[in-house]
């Protein structure tokens, strides 16, 4: 009788513990992402760049790491006009924000750490967004590219450090 009660208590403890989340597990959210229009540009010797801000919140607030994947082969940062490799334009991605005031070059699929997320607000408001991303096209990437419309998708993943 005593033995069966002990087994029942242990079973309850185990099932309870297995359902608990670690106290320090952060809940991250990335929002306010906006598409980036680099414009209609006739290539010059100047580089083309466009900045956009987005929000990363964490409960509790803390550091996060950022990983970017482009839509090229192996996640390469390329814009494509859909007519094969000859009509692809490389671009670079830089990110900055709290904890990383200087823009950091992102490498496809490689997590960059050192960013700080803001705590979430009760109403979900995250303004102003504190993480900035800069898309840069170097002139050397466009001099040889055929004219036309180029597009690509950039996937951003944030995770805890």
């Amino acid at each position: 009788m005593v033995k069966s009660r002990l087994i029942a208590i242990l079973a309850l403890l185990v099932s309870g513990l297995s359902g608990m989340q670690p106290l320090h597990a952060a809940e991250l959210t990335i929002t306010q992402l906006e598409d980036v229009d680099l414009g209609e540009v006739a290539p010059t010797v100047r580089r083309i760049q466009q900045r956009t801000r987005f929000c990363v919140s964490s409960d509790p607030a803390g550091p996060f790491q950022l990983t970017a994947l482009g839509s090229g082969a192996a996640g390469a940062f390329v814009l494509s006009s859909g007519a094969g490799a000859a009509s692809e334009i490389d671009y670079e991605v830089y990110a900055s924000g709290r904890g990383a005031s200087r823009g950091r070059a992102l490498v496809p699929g490689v997590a960059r750490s050192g960013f700080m997320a803001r705590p979430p607000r009760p109403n979900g408001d995250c303004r102003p967004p504190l993480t900035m991303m800069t898309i840069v096209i170097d002139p050397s990437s466009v001099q040889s590219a055929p004219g036309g419309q180029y597009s690509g998708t950039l996937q951003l993943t944030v995770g805890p450090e």
Partner: protein
Amino acid sequence: MTHSRSCEGYVPLALRFLFFSIVLLAGLYPAAGYAAVQGSTGPDTTGSVDLTYVQGLNVRINGLSDMPLGVWGGSGALAANDNICIGRTGVPLFSSAGTYRILASGDGEPGDPAAFTLSNGPSQMNYRAFFNDQTGTTGRQELTAGVALTNQNSFGLFYFFNMIFTCGAENANISIEVPEAQLSGAGGVYTGTLSLMLIPE
């Protein structure tokens, strides 16, 4: 810069260039619909943005000089030529896949506003103009005033140099010729301007 006819004194002839190049945007495309995907809340979160860019084409003509025709000695035609630089974007460096057209216009005459003419004020003379898509005059093609000469071509690396370094690699030639028949009986200082418009194809 000058030429003379025997018995009629010195008759300077000069031809100046006006240069035009066209920036041709590759069409106006409708803006892409906004498709940014926001992340959900969790231990990690992923969102995505769409990037769009419209690549135009640039061309550049450079390295042109005034062409002095000199002093006519009383017989034969007068001619001059100049190697120039054509730049164009949108061509791989080791390819000849990008063509262009050249449109030349002179000072005009009654009935033909683009005619290749030199003038001393009261009177005019006609000249011929030629374009070559390589240096020198061998293989040149005669230009028709106001009509584009199409399908001209060069090497991507030359185009690139001429876009980046102004005139990094001479890759074309413009030449003119005043026939003897036009020079006979003319007197005075004749000048004119030849305008060249470069258009990517």
